[in-house]
C-alpha cells in the first residue's frame, strides 16, 4: 500500500515521465483506433507503419527523393542565410535605408507567398530549382527582419565610445556590431529554417517528378497509408532534427548576453 504515494510523488517530481506517458497513450489510441475502428484504406496503426518502413526504403526512388529533399532544404537554407544577411545588413545598418526599405520588406513579408507558388514553378521549372527558390522566398524575410531588429537595438553609446577610442569602420563592425548581432542572427536563422521547411515542402507537395511530392501523391492515390505515414514520419523527423540543430545553435550563441 505504501507504493502509491511514492509513485505519486515521483510523478509529480518528474513531469517528463508523465509527458512520455501521454505520448505513449496517444500512440496506443492511434493503434487501437486504426486497428479496429477506422477503415484500413485510410489509416494504418503505428506498428504496421514501423514494420513497413524498411519495405518503403526499398521502393525504387524513395532514398533518392529523400536525398533530393534534404539537399533542397540545405541549399535553400544556406542561400537564405547568405542573402538575408547581406540584405539585412544593407537595409539595417544605414538609418536612411532602414527608414526607406524596411516598410517594403515588411510589406513583402506580410503577403501570402503560397499564392505565387504556381509562378515559381513556371519560372524555375518543376525540378529542384523551383523548390529551392520557393524555400528561399520563405526563408529570407524572417532573417532580414530579425537582423535589422538586432542592428537597430544597438546602443548608440557603444558606437560612440568605440569611435571616440579611434576604431575605424571595420573595427566598429568587427568588435561592436558583429558580436551584438549574433544572437538575433541565430534567432533569425531559426525562424528562417521554419520558413525554408515550409516553402520547400509546399513546393515539393505541389508538383514534383522525382521528389517527395511525387511519392505522397502516389501513396494517396493508391490508398497506401502505411507508406504515406512512413514517409511523412521520416520527413517530420528530418524537420525536427534540422529545427533542433538551429535552436541549439541559437541557445549556444545567445549565452553571452546573460
Amino acid at each position, binding site marked *: 500500500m505504501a507504493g502509491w504515494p511514492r509513485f505519486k510523488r515521483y510523478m*509529480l517530481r518528474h*513531469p517528463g515521465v*508523465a*509527458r512520455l506517458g*501521454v*505520448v505513449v497513450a496517444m500512440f496506443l489510441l492511434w493503434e487501437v483506433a486504426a486497428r479496429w475502428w477506422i477503415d484500413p484504406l*485510410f*489509416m494504418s496503426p503505428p506498428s504496421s507503419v514501423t514494420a513497413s518502413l524498411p519495405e518503403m526504403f526499398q521502393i525504387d526512388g524513395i532514398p533518392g527523393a529523400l536525398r533530393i529533399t534534404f539537399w533542397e532544404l540545405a541549399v535553400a537554407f544556406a542561400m537564405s542565410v547568405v542573402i538575408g544577411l547581406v540584405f539585412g545588413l544593407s537595409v539595417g545598418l544605414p538609418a*536612411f535605408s532602414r*527608414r*526607406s*526599405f524596411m*516598410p*517594403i520588406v515588411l510589406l513583402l513579408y*506580410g*503577403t*501570402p507567398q*503560397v*499564392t*505565387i*507558388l*504556381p*509562378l515559381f*514553378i*513556371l*519560372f524555375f521549372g518543376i525540378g529542384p530549382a523551383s523548390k529551392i527558390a520557393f524555400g528561399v522566398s520563405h526563408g529570407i524575410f524572417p532573417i532580414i527582419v530579425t537582423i535589422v531588429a538586432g542592428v537597430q537595438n544597438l546602443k548608440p553609446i557603444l558606437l560612440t565610445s568605440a569611435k571616440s577610442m579611434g576604431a575605424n569602420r571595420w573595427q566598429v563592425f568587427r568588435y561592436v556590431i558583429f558580436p551584438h548581432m549574433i544572437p538575433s542572427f541565430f534567432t533569425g536563422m531559426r525562424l528562417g529554417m*521554419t520558413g525554408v*521547411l*515550409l516553402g520547400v*515542402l*509546399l513546393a515539393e*507537395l*505541389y508538383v514534383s517528378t522525382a521528389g517527395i511530392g511525387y511519392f*505522397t*501523391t502516389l*501513396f*494517396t492515390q493508391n*490508398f497506401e*497509408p502505411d507508406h*504515406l*505515414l512512413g514517409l*511523412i514520419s521520416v*520527413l*517530420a523527423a528530418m*524537420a*525536427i532534427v534540422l*529545427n533542433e540543430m538551429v535552436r541549439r545553435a541559437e541557445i549556444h550563441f545567445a549565452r553571452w548576453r546573460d
Partner: protein
Amino acid sequence: MAGTGKRDAGWAVSRGVQVGFLVGLLVLWYVSTNYWGVSHLLLPEPVQVYWHFVDIIKTGEFLDDLNVTLSELAIAFTGSCTLGVTLGYLISRSPYAIRVFEPLFAGMYSVPIILFLPLYVLIFGLGPLSKIAIGGTISFFPIILSTIAGFGYVERTYIVSARSMGASDYQLFRYVLLPAALPVILTGMRMGFTVALLSIIGSETLASLAGLGHRIVHLAEGMDMARMFAYIAFVIAIAAFLNTVVSSLEARGRRR
C-alpha cells in the same frame, strides 16, 4: 525647430524612395514586357493584368471561390479557437499539467504540419473538409500555447489577494484571470488566424476542387497568365484586408 525640420525632410525622402521603388518596379515590368520582349507566358503585360482585375471585380465571378475559402477559414478558425482556448484553460489550471503538456504542444508546433496534408486529403477527401482540418490543426497550436501562457502565468499575488478579499470562482475568472490573459490569447489568435488563412490557401493550391487557391492553379495550368496575376493580386488584397481587420481587433481587445 531645425531638428524636426531636418527629420521631416529625411522622412519625405524616405517616402519618396519607397514610392520611387514601387513605381520603378511597375515601370520595369511595363518596359520589359512591352519593349524587351519578355515572353507574355512568363510575365503578362501590366495593363492587361489591370483590365483583368477590373473584370474580375465587375463580374463578381470571384464570389463563389471567395465564399468557399472564407467559410473554410471561418469553420477552421472557430473550431481551433474553441478547442484551443478550452483545452488551454483546463491545462493552465494546474502547474503540473502545464509542465506536462506545454513542451508537448511546443514540440508538435515545430513540425511543419503542412506535411500531413496528403494524409488529410486521404482521410477527408479533396473537398473543403481537408482544408478545414489542416487549417484547424495548424492554427490550434499557437492558440493553445498562448492560452496556456496567458492563464498559466498570471501573477500569483493577484490571485491570492483576490481570493483573500473573498472573490468567488466566477469573480476570480472574470476580474483577474481573464483581463490578465486576454492580451496574450488575442495575440495567439491573430497568429492562428494568419497561419490558418495561409495554410487554407496553400492546401487549396496543392489539392482541391474549389476556392481561391484552386482558381489560381487552374489559371496557371491553362497558361492564362494575365488573369492569374489579377487573381493573385486579388487574393493578396483579400489577405491583407483580413489581416488588417484581425490586427485592429486584437489592438482594440488589448486596450480594454
